[in-house]
């Protein structure tokens, strides 16, 4: 669902807002929270799948960290 490139861009745009925060851990949690609050599950899965298939080169560091949180959340659900 949706081009992975597009989803990565959306995630990076979110990252660009939160990465300005002083606390990078918090920033990654905020990115993760934003994605899980506003993205339909198909989109989240597609992004995670793409990362699994192609790595995280395209993603900002804060987004990469956010994806760990998201994965964790999905597993705990």
């Amino acid at each position: 669902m949706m081009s992975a490139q597009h989803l990565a861009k959306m995630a990076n745009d979110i990252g660009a807002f939160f990465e300005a925060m002083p606390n990078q851990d918090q920033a990654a949690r905020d990115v993760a929270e934003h994605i899980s609050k506003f993205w339909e599950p198909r989109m989240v899965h597609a992004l995670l799948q793409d990362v699994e298939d192609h790595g995280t080169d395209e993603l900002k560091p804060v987004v990469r960290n956010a994806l760990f949180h998201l994965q964790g959340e999905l597993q705990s659900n």
Partner: protein
Amino acid sequence: MDMPFLSPHDTDLGTPEKISDQQVSLHIDGHPVTVPRGTSLMRAAALTGLSIPKLCATDTLEPFGSCRLCLVEIEGRKGFPASCTTPAEEGMVVRTQSTQLAQLRRGVMELYISDHPLDCLTCASNGDCELQDMAGAVGLREVRYPSIEHHHLTAQKDDSNPYFVYDPSKCIVCNRCVRACEEIQGTFALTLSGRGFSSRVSPGESQPFMASECVSCGACVDACPTATLVEKSILEAGQPEYSVVTTCAYCGVGCGFKADMKGTEVVRMTPWKGGKANEGHACVKGRFAWGYATHKDRILTPMIRKHITDPWQVVSWEEAIQYAASEFRRIQGTYGRDAVGGITSSRCTNEETYLAQKMVRAAFGNNNVDTCARVCHSPTGYGLGMTYGTSAGTQTFKSVEHSDVILIIGANPTDAHPVFGSRLKKRLREGARLIIIDPRRIDLVQGPHFKADYLLQLRPGTNVAIINAIAHVIVTEGLVASDFVNTRCDMESFQAWKAFVVQPHNSPEAMEPVTGVPATQVREAARLYATGGNAAIYYGLGVTEHAQGSTMVIGIANLAMVTGNIGKEGVGVNPLRGQNNVQGSCDMGSFPHEYPGYRHVSDDATRHSFESAWGLPLRKEPGLRIPNMFEAALDGSFRGLYCQGEDIVQSDPNTQHVIAALSSLECLVVQDIFLNETAKYAHVFLPGSSFLEKDGTFTNAERRISRVRKVMPPKGGMSDWEVTVALSNALGYPMHYSHPSEIMDEIARLTPTFSGVSYDLLDRLGSVQWPCDDQNPEGTPLMHVGSFVRGLGQFMITQYVPTDEKVTPKFPLLLTTGRILSQYNVGAQTRRTANMAFHSEDRLDIHPHDAEDRGILDGDWVGVSSRSGNTVLRAHVSERMSPGVVYTTFHFPESGSNVITTDNSDWATNCPEYKVTAVQVTRVRQMSDWQKYHQQFDEMQQHLLRPGPEQMTPS
């Protein structure tokens, strides 16, 4: 339950209300009366039920004292003062009737009538003429000046305006029209020239109305006591029998109107004095452009078809609804529960929107519901929600009367929110200071008796850079409102934000190359905003429709907090909402992640309350937003869409992408009043009803909930809410309502901020601003008094991130978009009215330098291309734009403005970046390929709509 019918004639107390702490008591004709100091004798008399004859006075205008009909006697004073201009004083004893007064008044009337045509019986204002009434009131029986020269009787009529006529032969030179245009509308289009009986009212330099500065607001027509200025609709239909109070269905100002009726025919819309958003004023759209409701293009019968290349088949409501429901169920059976969704519209009522999202969540069983606010003010919801805790503006419109400094960002109120624009201009004439941040030189930069102190004419896409630079100045120059910040805001967030804004890269000097705005101007404007007294921010889509739309809303919220401009009159953060019910459609839970009242679908307590009320389990994951729906349609996982009153093909960006997405749907159901651009891709068409045909409520930009009242039966046979109910029933999720008031009762039961709202309350108060609950039973005009809704105000860091949409040698100009006064959004309504006389095509505004470089002359056809597509418009060479920036409106589908806009969007909400598109402009000779496609497709669809006789037989 509904408000009783009103008389079309308002009571007129003669002079405006005066507010004072002190009261004065006096006697008028023996009756004791107490009024606020400053009140005129005329008004004091009217308040006791006495009416003093008058012609030049009316309670919407300051008194003028010219007609001398309102004379009274005051004990202990000589002569006969005019009661409209004489203030009531303590202990006065006033007489409004005596033999001498009667004689004087008769004399005055005699003079007026001697120069007035005596065609009362055939006059359009017969029955609604103050001159006629006054002749009766003063007992005029004869006119002794038959030989007087008739100065006016032969004067020519001016019927250049499409909506009203000016017949100078009937003018009594009372000056009410001139004052209305100045005091209420603020356009100063009319003047009174000449003296005494030979004086005349004329627009501009004795021009016809259409050639003058007049903006057709109708204020002068309302104010005119005679038939001199009169609506053409009244000339045609005659005087109304009764009136019904309702709410304008155009912009987010939400003006109250009286629909003046004859049977079930509207003969006039007059602004309602009791309407708190507009207090008796209106603009050309609401006042005059309502004829679309009965336009021949209305589609009044349900229609279906299998493919979009098939002719439409007219079917019964039942068949259309059954077909739509069976298609949705088939698609869900084949592709899964999440393969369908719905879009609600900000044009629809709260009740309709609520039902549409309920149907999606309960009957479709997913959260795939979104609203057109996605493409306008979704960043407002996000930004204000995060910082203040509530997704709405903080003030009433009236609050601007207390503002000392007004900061307008990315908004053009005199065109897009005209009645608020008039309030604003009034405050500016009284001396409030003005700062404008806009890439365009909008009308408010300079006007009659006001001038902006600063115009920060920034490059499109650099809003956040400017707001950070302003914050930088405020913090580094020690202008922080420390008391407010210390007591009202979250200090940790403030410290982090402060550390961010003081960084040198945020200074006006560092940002100057980015924004193109001289640093000294930014510094001075920042000082003025922070130190000039009550400072209010008004902003529009020039803030939200950017890749950093949400960041900018947050930046604005930070700025108001750091200067303490929150929680009192005259200050605040005020989003100017585009459509009539943007606020309401957001409030009603038409976002894929939120229930009514902005509560996340994952919040268990909220979800359980809806589950128990609606009787089924609900999903806790967010659904698809509109752009996600398009993406999902293109990849095949989304196949069916219910689109209520929203024209996504014309209004959403990157038209070709939208069309590709819709063309891949198996079932598109469109509910609308016209075969709009989206309906041309539909499989089921359900006739919608106009605002005149329905009961419900709209919520304006001040959170004000006002009633919309049905004045005629739905032309297609079913109200919009009944259609949604029928569709839900057919989907197997029964809904039971017998009137929209019951829907509102359900909303109130399930939404804490609406818990006190009911139709009874609205009938009693006229309108109410949410939150309306036990603590605020009559609503909340002013938000965040004492504390923020979220507790402490939250500062957030707003790093400027340049948009990806950059100028390149291939696309060297930046295109931005906007609206004009006479047309409304996609234009489906206004294009079907005489407003076409004011603006009949979208044009491309281009700076003379850029035009010259390209050999473009005013009026030339020019091709505009971007990385999304290209279209052709006519050029308008104008200095309103800076060099390098071009501008167009988007009211006509054939212009294809959104063929050029891209699918870049706001990082938080996916609100499209309409306001920045890199383009190239060249002279051309023919339509673009897209326009040719559009023309052909449109012709085909019109043909499929009106098939030849052989295709008419129902299947």
